[in-house]
């Protein structure tokens, strides 16, 4: 029969015996028989869930049973099973920083800057986690590094690097904080963690490249604070807006409110195409212009109002009528076109030019108490000609000048155009691709019209064929 050997503190539960002969084919079986023979031992060996207590180790002929099959390890006639405790502890003495650092230097593997650079050139480089502060990161960082401030490391790392087997390199300014960060990651179960020796200082001394991200200034942070607190915008989105260039065709009823909100939102560059001068009858709805602007070019009046609102704005003025000769030159270099024109020939010209340049057009139109807004973008959805292959007869498509418009209505539609423009620039949400949002002010309602790309469209079929994977998905790149 196998022999059970018990340590002194357990013998009182076994009638004082230190050796007990017990039957059983496996360790589990033998334990069950032991507990059956000495019921008081059960609480000493097992926890309330019936698992062996954490500090209990079992040895079969001197070998930890975990080296074999654990509790299922077979037990033979002449075997000896010994119960022993796990013993560990600490002095509870306060650790000194120097001692801790010395311990980590012995524990955490390090990587030299040139080794890291070589690894980064490989197909599957390690994840590089920069644990410095925001202000240090802003001064420059190793390309492709992930920034997690040391203070948030424990909270954020799992979401950013869910795979515990992924090799990770921690880096900081001089290579000290990264060792502590590496220890933290090891505690969290990351199995392959290293620290960049000498940190960013050593990286720079080797002449290795640094990336410096654009940053908002303190003034910009204050101005765009309400954007920064939206996760979908944040600093990255605001920087994208500041870098964006939007062309407004027309500084009239639609262009004025759209430009006002785009400038306020921090779009960096606005181009304005308009060859008209301000007329007294414009002031009923064209909110960029003032009474003292009457008689002056609309482009200049618009610029003055927009710069008064946001002096950081870059404004490019095109005081001319858009025509086939100048359209491509004017539109090139912009990211989005906001169509606020009031006639079909200009809309077709904008459409054809945008299709050729691959630009999205945010279209708006108004008549009396109704208006509509939509996004046309060849390669991502229908173009304007897919919806309106030919212009309607003039008597069915009167302009505002002829038919009149409620003053506030272009404000509603122009602001919706600005909204669609921001969505496109920020790459968020569902742009109105293949959809027209129609607003009826008298009914007080909105409805959406859906339409498809015309596969035989003489204008955009070729452009759409070049980007078939994106066609009709309604998701801009």
């Amino acid at each position, binding site marked *: 029969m196998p022999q059970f050997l018990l340590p002194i*503190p357990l013998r009182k539960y076994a009638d004082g015996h230190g050796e007990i002969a017990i039957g059983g084919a496996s360790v589990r079986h033998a334990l069950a028989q032991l507990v059956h023979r000495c019921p008081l031992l059960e609480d000493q060996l097992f926890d309330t869930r019936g698992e062996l207590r954490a500090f209990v180790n079992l040895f079969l002929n001197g070998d930890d049973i975990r080296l074999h099959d654990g509790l299922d390890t077979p037990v033979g006639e002449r075997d000896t099973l010994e119960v022993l405790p796990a013993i560990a*502890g600490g002095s509870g003495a306060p650790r000194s920083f120097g001692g801790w650092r010395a311990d980590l230097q012995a524990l955490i593997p390090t990587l030299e800057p040139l080794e890291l650079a070589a690894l980064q050139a490989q197909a599957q480089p390690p994840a590089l986690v920069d644990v410095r502060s925001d202000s240090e990161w802003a001064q420059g960082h190793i390309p492709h590094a992930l920034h997690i401030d040391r203070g948030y490391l424990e909270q954020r790392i799992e979401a950013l690097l869910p795979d515990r087997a992924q090799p990770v390199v921690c880096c900081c300014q001089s290579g000290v904080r990264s060792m502590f960060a590496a220890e933290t990651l090891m505690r969290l179960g990351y199995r392959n963690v290293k620290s960049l020796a000498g940190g960013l200082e050593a990286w720079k001394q080797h002449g290795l490249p640094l990336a410096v991200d654009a940053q908002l200034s303190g003034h910009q942070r204050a101005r765009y604070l309400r954007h920064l607190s939206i996760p979908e915008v944040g600093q990255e989105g605001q920087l994208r807006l500041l870098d964006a260039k939007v062309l407004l065709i027309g500084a009239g009823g639609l262009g004025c409110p759209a430009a006002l909100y785009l400038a306020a939102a921090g779009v960096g560059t606005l181009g304005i195409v308009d060859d008209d001068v301000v007329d007294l009858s414009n002031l009923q709805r064209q909110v960029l212009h003032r009474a003292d602007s009457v008689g002056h070019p609309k482009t200049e009046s618009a610029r003055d109002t927009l710069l008064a609102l946001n002096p950081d704005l870059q404004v490019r003025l095109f005081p001319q009528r858009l025509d086939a000769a100048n359209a491509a030159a004017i539109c090139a270099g912009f990211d989005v076109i906001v169509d606020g024109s009031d006639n079909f020939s200009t809309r077709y010209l904008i459409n054809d030019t945008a299709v050729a340049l691959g630009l999205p057009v945010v279209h708006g139109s108004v008549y009396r108490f109704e208006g509509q807004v939509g996004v046309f973008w060849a390669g991502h959805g229908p173009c304007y000609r897919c919806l309106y292959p030919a212009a309607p007869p003039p008597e069915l498509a009167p302009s505002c000048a002829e038919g009149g418009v409620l003053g506030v209505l272009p404000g509603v539609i122009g602001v919706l155009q600005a909204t669609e423009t921001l969505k496109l620039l920020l790459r968020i949400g569902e742009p109105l691709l293949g959809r027209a949002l129609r607003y009826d002010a008298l009914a007080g309602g909105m409805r959406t019209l859906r339409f498809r790309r015309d596969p035989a469209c003489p204008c955009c079929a070729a452009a759409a064929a070049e980007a078939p994977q994106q066609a009709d998905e309604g998701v801009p790149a």
Partner: protein
Amino acid sequence: MPPPMPESTPIALMPGVRAALLEMAHRAAPRECCGVLLGRADGGGAPVRIAAAEQLANAELRDPGTRFRIDPRALAAATRAARARALDVVGFFHSHPDGPARPSAEDVDEASAWPGTLHVILAPAADELRLYETGTTTWYERQPLQARP
């Protein structure tokens, strides 16, 4: 207020053991030393006799200055060797190179084993040795009998 100390058998520290333990603690400093107390516990109210101490390697490699761990395999080997000498492992010991000879929270958490396990803590800085009997939430200090040679 700790619970009252359970009834226990007397414990005798044989001559030379105290000096040998303190010598191990001094030599190991600034690292913690650890090991097993060997002796006899014949039961029946006879004193537990601590006849010798055998140092085992501190398996705590990360913080050997402030932590200790006895490797289970080394413990199994020491237990077998003791049996061959007709001795038992009657308890454990470890040192606090910079601290007092009192159990830390980690000691109580990780080294208590079963209540009634004997454990000596050494404080080489103070040349001090204290003997404890473990409980579930606290350790009870025991005064060893001064065994005559």
